Each structure stands twice: as C-alpha cells, then as structure tokens.
C-alpha cells in the first residue's frame, strides 16, 4: 500500500484488508508512524507518539489474527486525545502542570477499545485542558490544519481532527464539552460525533466540565464513526452519569433504506436562529445545499425556533467554568505532575499552578471561581442553571416536531493561525452553534459538506434527541453518499 492509499484508509476498509490477510497491522502501523513522524514538524498533530508501544501491539494483534481470532477493531490503529488515560503513557491534556505524569490506569473508553483489539498510536494535541477552539492554547505549541494550510484546525480536539483529516491516523477519539469534536471535525473535513450525555463513560478522561463532557469518534466516514461508537458506548459502573441504555449496532442505522429516498419519512428541523446574522455566506450556502440534498433524499424540512439560542454562550461559559474551577483544583503538585517547591504548602499550590497553567486556563478558573462565590452564586451559577433548563426545553420542543435538526457547525470556516489569539470573546463566540447540544445533553454530529472557494472544509451539523444516534447516523450516511 502506498502512502496516499494509506492516508485515505478508513476503519471499515482496514478491517476488510486485515480480515482478508491483505495487510498486517505491523505494516499499517509502520506506515502510519512514518507519516506521523514526518508531519510533526509542520502539522504537529501529536503531543506524544508511542512508536514502540504501537509496534508491539501491532505484532500482538497480527499474532492473534493469525491464531484465528477476530474482534470488532482487532489491529486497527487509533489516535487518542491527550486528555484520556492510557496505562503507562503520559497524559498531559496539553498542560505543563501534568508534565511527567504517567497514567496508572486505562480510561473506560480505552479499556473498551483495548478489549476490541485497537492499537494506540499516540496522543493528539489539544487546547490546554480542552479550553479553546483553536488548539493554540496547548502548552506544547499549536497544530496546523492539514487541509486548509496555514489555518487553525479548530479545537479543542484539533490534534485528533488534524491527524484524521491529514491522513496521519485512520481514526481518533476526541472529547466535546461545547463543540470540541464537531468544530475541529468541520474545519478539517472529517466526521465527528458528540454522543448523548451518558452514552459514553467519562471515567479516566481528564475532566473539563463534568456535566457537559462527552467522548466521541472522529473519523473519515459515518460508517467508521458508527464502528467506533459501537465499541465505546454503554454503561460503566465507574461513571455514575453513564446510563444503562441499550447499545444498538449503529452500523445498522442505514440498513434497508430505500436507495432512492433513504430519508423518506424523516422530518428535519432547520433552526432559524442558526441561519441568522454573522453566518459566513459560503458556510450558509454549503449548509443550505445539504438541506436541499436531504429533501432530495426524501426528508421533509421544516423551520423551527430555538428561542433561547442567544443565551447559549453566556450560559455555557458560566456552567462550564464553574465546574472547571473545581475539576482543576486537584492539580496542586502534591501527588503528581509539576511541583514548584515552596516553604509552605499553600504557597506551593500557588507557585505550581501559576507556572503550570496557561493564560486561558487561569482566565477560566478565575471566571468559574467568581461565578460560584458567595454573593454572586445566585446571579450567575444559579441563573445559568435555569437558563440551561430553558435551552433544553427549546430542543425538546423542537424534537417534538421533528426527528433531527440541521444547521451549520461554526459561523465561519477555519481562520489563519495566530488571528484572534488575544481576543477570548471572539473565540468564545465561535462556539455559538455547538454549545446547545452539550447544555441539553443531546447527541450531535458534524459531517463534511464541501469546501469554500479557498478550499477550506465546511461542516454541516445534525443534532438529535437524547439517545437519537441511530437517526443521526441514518441521515448522515445518506447525506455522505450524495456529498
């Protein structure tokens, strides 16, 4: 297999080739490692590449396959966002404060992938503690968009998106707190799924905002995303918020569909607030074209309203920073990671955190500490919880009328690296179309919808009700085939 073929390889095709004995995992891993290493200089998608570990796992997988074994992902290499614990590997969440930390345990998603036979290639770059939408807040330097060169890959799962979009990895895991899977997927021209809150275990994933975080697949195709979600979904006794809800075979979502009208009978809502001012005309054109394709495939589209959309960003940045401020309190230099020694322990906390955390982390921890403070709690945290309920009700009302919502992922395509870097508000506003799914807990997906005139990828977002992933995959698969 030549490099270009390897770069285009999907999970489904990899499994077919491995099962047919046309390729070995060792060959794939060696080829990918070469591409990864050579791309580090310009793309910088990875924080750590575990060449030795990946080759050892590949040899084990090949031996197991030779012995007649088969598993859902046996021998499939995957890239992991640097905020998930993989036993024996570093896990920095792209922060100085976790330098030197080696994970003593597997996150549940990692344990599930391991049991399914996946190979862990390395750890992808991200915004520090997943706080950002550009991957520029990483303590280890930015990642560049491999498709729209010179531009941001999006974030916070920018490393995973760049790895998959640039063909450095066959598939990857990302995490999404306010759009961190969908937005970089959109900017890098790949598929990214934020599952329903409670679908996938959060155990072992460095917490950003506990009530919003969810891990999901980042892949080249809808089928690949379904294959990965099949493996990582399901109840986990180690995560009390992970629900005991049956896991269907997501690859069956499009089975038996009418080839001409695969979306017949499906009603898709177009939230009018998502097509308002500030939406880039090229993005609007691509998304409207996707809606038109959905109609051509048999779906009915209706305009819906999410009246509290305008409150999404302030609500999100209060809920998220409040939880974050407590979640990041454990990074104090006592048990692991960076320690800046001082004579008394409280001073040591201050010095360690001052040196270990980057500016964006500090900004959000301060914000979160403020909104929880006595005297401000009711005005900020409590009020945000109430608005969060209103936003959830908006979505529930919309799903009473239609099966899915369709809209843009981001208001504009990827912008050049370095731009807006000192303008946090500008960055925060780019999450405006993605935070509602996290605040409401429902599932959503970003699907490639073509490119701008300059060749920048544009994504279309599908939002489904709680545990509505099957509908999401059915629609996405149909749209992808006619893309």
């Amino acid at each position, binding site marked *: 297999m030549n490099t270009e073929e390897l770069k285009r390889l999907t999970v489904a095709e990899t499994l077919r080739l491995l099962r047919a004995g046309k390729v070995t995992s060792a060959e794939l891993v060696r080829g990918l490692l070469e591409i990864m290493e050579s791309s580090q200089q310009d793309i910088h998608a990875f924080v750590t590449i575990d060449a030795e570990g990946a080759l050892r796992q590949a040899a084990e997988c090949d031996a197991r396959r030779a012995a007649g074994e088969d598993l859902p992902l046996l021998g499939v290499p995957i890239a992991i966002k640097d905020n998930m*614990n993989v036993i024996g590997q570093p896990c920095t969440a792209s922060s100085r404060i976790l330098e030197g930390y080696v994970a003593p345990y597997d996150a549940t998603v990692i344990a599930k992938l391991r049991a399914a036979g996946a190979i862990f290639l390395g750890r992808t770059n991200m915004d520090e503690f997943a706080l950002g939408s550009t991957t520029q807040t990483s303590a280890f330097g930015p990642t560049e968009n491999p498709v729209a060169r010179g531009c941001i890959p999006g974030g916070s799962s920018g490393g995973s998106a760049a790895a998959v979009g640039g063909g450095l990895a066959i598939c990857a895991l990302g995490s999404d707190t306010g759009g961190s899977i969908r937005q970089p997927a959109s900017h890098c021209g790949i598929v990214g799924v934020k599952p329903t809150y409670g679908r996938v275990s959060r155990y072992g994933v460095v917490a950003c905002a506990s*009530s919003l975080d969810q891990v999901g697949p980042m892949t080249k195709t809808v089928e690949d995303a379904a294959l990965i979600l099949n493996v990582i979904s399901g109840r986990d006794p180690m*995560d009390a918020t992970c629900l005991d809800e049956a896991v269907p075979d997501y690859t069956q979502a499009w089975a038996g569909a009418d080839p001409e009208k695969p979306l017949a009978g499906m009603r898709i809502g177009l939230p009018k607030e998502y097509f308002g001012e500030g939406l880039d005309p090229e993005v609007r054109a691509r998304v409207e074209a996707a809606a038109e394709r959905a109609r051509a495939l048999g779906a009915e589209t209706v305009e819906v309203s999410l009246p509290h959309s305008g409150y999404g960003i302030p609500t999100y940045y209060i809920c998220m920073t409040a939880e974050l*401020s*407590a979640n990041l309190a*454990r990074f104090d230099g006592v*048990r692991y990671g960076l320690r800046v020694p001082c004579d008394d322990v409280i001073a040591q906390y201050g010095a360690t955190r001052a040196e270990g955390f980057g500016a964006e982390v500090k900004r959000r921890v301060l914000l979160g500490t403020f909104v929880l403070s006595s005297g401000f709690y009711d005005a900020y945290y409590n009020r945000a919880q109430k608005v969060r309920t209103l936003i959830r009700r908006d979505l529930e009302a919309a799903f009473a009328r239609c099966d899915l919502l369709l809209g843009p992922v981001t208001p504009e395509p990827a912008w050049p690296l370095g731009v807006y870097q000192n303008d946090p508000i500008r960055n925060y506003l780019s999450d405006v179309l993605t935070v509602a799914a996290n605040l409401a807990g429902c599932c959503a997906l970003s699907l490639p919808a073509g490119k701008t005139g300059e060749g920048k990828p544009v994504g279309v977002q599908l939002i489904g009700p709680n545990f509505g992933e099957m509908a999401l995959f059915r629609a996405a698969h149909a749209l992808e085939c006619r893309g």
Partner: protein
Amino acid sequence: MEYEVVIGLETHVQLKTRTKMFCGCTLEFGAEPNTHVCPVCLGYPGALPSMNRKAIRYTVMAGLMLGCRIAPYAKFDRKNYFYPDSSKNYQITQLDYPLCLGGGVDIAGDDGSRRTIRINHIHLEEDVAKLTHRAGCSGVDYNRAGTPLMEIVSEPDLRSADEAIAYLTALREMMIYAGVSECNLEEGNMRSDVNVSIRPKGQEAYGTKVEIKNMNTFSGIHAALLFEIDRQKRVLEAGGTIRQETRRWDTEALETASMRSKENADDYRYFPEPDLMPIALTEAQIAEWAKDLPEAPGARRARMTEQYGIPEYDAGVLSADRALADFFEAAAQRCGNGKLASNWVMAEVLALTAKTGTALTESALRPEMLGDLLKLLEKKTINGPTAKALLPELFEKGGDPEAIVKERGLGQVSDSAAIEALVDAAIAANPKVVADYRAGKKAAAGFFVGQVMKASKGKASPQLVQEILARRLA
C-alpha cells in the same frame, strides 16, 4: 448572674461499610499508610466517584433509628477548599438536600426527666486524608480519604456537659444497635464538633457560640465543655464579650485555645456535584431497608419489662447489647419463663463469657439450648445443680440438653420410694446426728440432705428429700 448553657453537637459517625464511599478501596484501621488507595481516592486526573449503595442504606437506617424523615430527594455537593488533606481539593458532601431530616435522641436530663434532643439533619460525606506533621515535613495518608461519614447535627437543645455526654452515649448505643457503625472511639469512628454558648438565665436570644473542633473522646468533650463554659462565664462576668471563633481542646494544658476567628467566614463555593446523580429513594426501598432495623434500645427495654415480667434493671442490662437482648428473648420464648431466663442469662451466661473471655456470639451456646435446659429445670426433669453443671459444656461445645440428660441418666429422681430408702439408710447410719437433731439442732437436717444427694449422685429432687426427711425425723 446565673447563666444557662446551650450546646449543640455535630457528630461524625464512620459507617461500617467494607469499602470507601466512592471507590472500591477497602477500609482498614491502622494499615500501612497509602496502601488502601486508588486513582479515585487519590484524586487522579480523570477519576470519578461512584456511590457506595451500602453507605446510603446505612445512613437511611440510622435516620429511621433516630426517627428522622427520609428525604424523597437528596443530592451531593462539592465543598471547595485547598488543603493537603483533600485529594481533589474539594470534599463531596451534602449541603442543602441531606438524606435525613428531623428526628431526636431521648436522654435523661439533669433534672432526671426524660428529654428529647432534636436532630436537625443527617448528611453523608467523605472523610479526608490523615496528616502527620514531623520536623520539617508533613505526611499525608490517603487510606482514610473517602471513608463514609454521617454527620449527625443536633439542635442546640443540650444544657450541660453531662447532658452532652448522655446524648452521645445514647447516640452511640443506637448506632451500634442499628448495625451501621462500630462507633469505636479509639479508632476515631465517632468525632464531634461541639458548639457552646451561654446566656443569662431567662434570656431568649442565644449567646455568641464557640466551636470546639474534632473531639473523639467523651471524657475530652466533657472536660472541654466544663472548661469552655467556665471560660465564657469568666469573660462575661469581667464585662467582656465572647468572640465567635473556632477553638481546639489542648489535651496537655487541659484548656481550649483559639484556632481561628469566624469573622472572615470561608467561602466554600458549594455547588451540586455533577459527577453523581441525585438520590431519589422510593417508599418501597425505604420500607425494605426498615425491615432490617432493630427496635430502638429504649423501646425494647420497655417492651421486655412488660412482655417478660422482668425488672427494669434486668431489661436495661439485657437491652444494652443487641446480641444479648436477642439471645435472651429467644431463650425466654423457648422456655416460656422470662424471669427464669433473665436470671440465668444475667448470672450464669454472663459469668461464663467473663470467665472464658469468649463473646456470647462466638460461643457454641445457642439461645434454644438454654431455653431447653431451663425447660428441663422447670419440668423438674433435672435439678438446679445439674443444670448449672451442664451449662459450661453447652457453652463450649453445644448440644441438645434433653439428649444429654437422657444419655447420661442425669434425670432428677422424683421416685418417693427410692428416696425414702436413701433417707432411711442415711438415718440408720448416723444415729448420733439423729439424736442431735431430735435434741433441737435443726441444722443437722442439712447434713442428711447432703448425704442423700450424694448417695443419689446429685439426681434426687432436693425438695422431695427435704419433705421425706422432715417426715422421718419428726
């Protein structure tokens, strides 16, 4: 001026679960430091708490025991503060929706009357790590981090140091009784924060309160309260004012000392714990758990007095220990004579446990065996000395008293003819003693009883022997 003392207690009671509150680590007192730890209780990146269901159940049982209302909705909160005893730098506790509300503990007040000390609420939280300070450094032992603790918060209803101890003693008895805690004071299973203030007698408004933190012995609490009450009186009488503050009991100097003023209250930035679901217990679930709940010791004392016709003193001794009370009741029901059972349990059985150092529950003696033994005594199948002689054997090895009596022929001889023969033989063999008796030395009768009992190998009915002797000697 005369002052009235006002005391309220916040008592942390360690639950008797096998594992920690939010992870699977086992609880072991005195283990090598940091050997019972995992990513969860060490606060590692990505680790999440998962609820120990038994801790919820035990807290609900404690609440039912104290007559609390069980909240239909309860939730956990994060209490944020930076300190090395907390691995996450926040503690998971319950702020405004605790598991149990209301309830009370009955005590004998200083004036002798029974009073109910009201409970405000019981909430569930995780314990912190143990810090040890050495020259130039401090050690953190996370074995204790994540131990489930109930915090039982009383209303300010206690009026003296003695009442505080009466309350704690009753509370401890109830928690042990309910089987939810060992309440081992040496192991710190029961630690109290004591709030105390004084006010001029007759004044409605409370005085300024002082909190004495983290006291784990009853004698220490008593001494600290006496000291603090006296200190506050002296301050007020000298025209001073009490500062609202946290003090600690100095066990060397035997005085309370200021730790920190409460004027700059800490801001713990509490908010709902997003990693745990709220708890919504159903009536059916609570009823199911209530089935395992023992009768409260006070209620049991009253019922046993009534039901078995035993003195209040006996009922008090028996009901103080749940296992002993269960044993007594089973034995009493088996033999049908409560007073007899109570006498035997309190005298003979407790003497055996003391003598052998074996707890009743560890011994081979089952209450049914004692009941059967006492039944044989009641029916006069055996006599008292035989029963007493058999008990140590049953205690050590167990067995069926009726079978043993039959097998060894220990049955009491109640056959008048046989006894008459023995009596006549004894009289015939001791003419001098007969003469003494007839001369007025009535105590000589005891000699003949002894002789006859000896000749019967202890099996003769002592009552019958006496009757026949009296007739023959007359």
